[in-house]
């Protein structure tokens, strides 16, 4: 059965998925938490989560000094919100249902996106790596690559339940864009 995300009338979002997928999601908070505990700012992946704000190094240092803590706290809040919802998931046979509280939606979505950033940075994803046709199951990091694709799909589904309209992408301009003209679904292009 497919992953299904829907917004309920009370504003909560229901994420319905296979138990196995839910258990994979359950293992993710630890991956990010490890990066965020005593973050190593020489690590490329950490840097992707804490990008610079100013081109000028001195100004940027000052910016990080003032606002770095807030960003770290926000990322950790996302980890916590995600973790909590996974702990509370309802399981029936081999299906799981996760409830995302309305007030947690941004944090939850942010966590999924942070996980994508981490994976994408570790895998050194380039712009042209997104075609589903190109997926190579014998890739040495096929599991993480597949996880990244899965999280992209989850994120697209979450966005459809955001309450905000999604972009309608015009027909493809280049061969590279073909197949993603509708702007929805797991094969949607990254920006």
């Amino acid at each position, binding site marked *: 059965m497919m992953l299904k995300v829907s917004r309920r009338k009370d504003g909560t979002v229901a994420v319905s998925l296979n138990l196995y997928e839910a258990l994979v999601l359950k293992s993710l908070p630890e991956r990010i938490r490890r990066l965020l505990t005593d973050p190593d700012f020489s690590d490329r992946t950490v840097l992707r989560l804490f990008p610079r*704000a100013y081109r000028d190094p001195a100004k940027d240092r000052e910016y990080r000094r003032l606002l770095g803590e807030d960003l770290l706290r926000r990322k950790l809040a996302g980890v916590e919100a995600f973790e909590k919802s996974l702990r509370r998931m309802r399981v029936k046979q081999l299906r799981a249902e996760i409830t995302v509280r309305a007030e947690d939606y941004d944090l939850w979505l942010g966590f999924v996106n942070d996980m994508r*950033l981490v994976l994408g940075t570790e895998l050194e994803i380039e712009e042209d790596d997104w075609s589903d046709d190109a997926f190579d199951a014998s890739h040495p990091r096929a599991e993480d690559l597949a996880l990244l694709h899965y999280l992209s799909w989850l994120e697209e589904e979450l966005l459809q339940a955001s309450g905000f309209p*999604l972009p309608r992408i015009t027909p493809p301009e280049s061969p590279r864009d073909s197949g993603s003209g509708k*702007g929805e679904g797991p094969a949607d*292009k990254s920006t």
Partner: protein
Amino acid sequence: MEEPNGTGPVLSGGVSPGTREKTTTETDSLVSPDRLWNVIVWNDPINLMSYVTFVFQKLFGYSIELATKLMLQVHNEGRSIVASVEREKAEYYVSRLHQYGLQATLEKQDA
């Protein structure tokens, strides 16, 4: 020096999405009241077009049309100026964009 985008949106004074975080001092806006700072979002190969469009709507209160236009500019041109505001507000927006996982910087608008 990159030129500011002539069609970039200037955030009108009345729009203030979300609760403002505690900022440092107010003096920046007093020192150079006519100096605007550009908030720039940079392209990256990981963030989804739909996600970026969502963030622009949620954070700035932009319409789907404007949010899509800016997102496509990021995607096609590598970057886009998404707001031009006074410095403190620009820093706030950049910090919020970072929280959403976007790559964003601020720079003084050319005089």
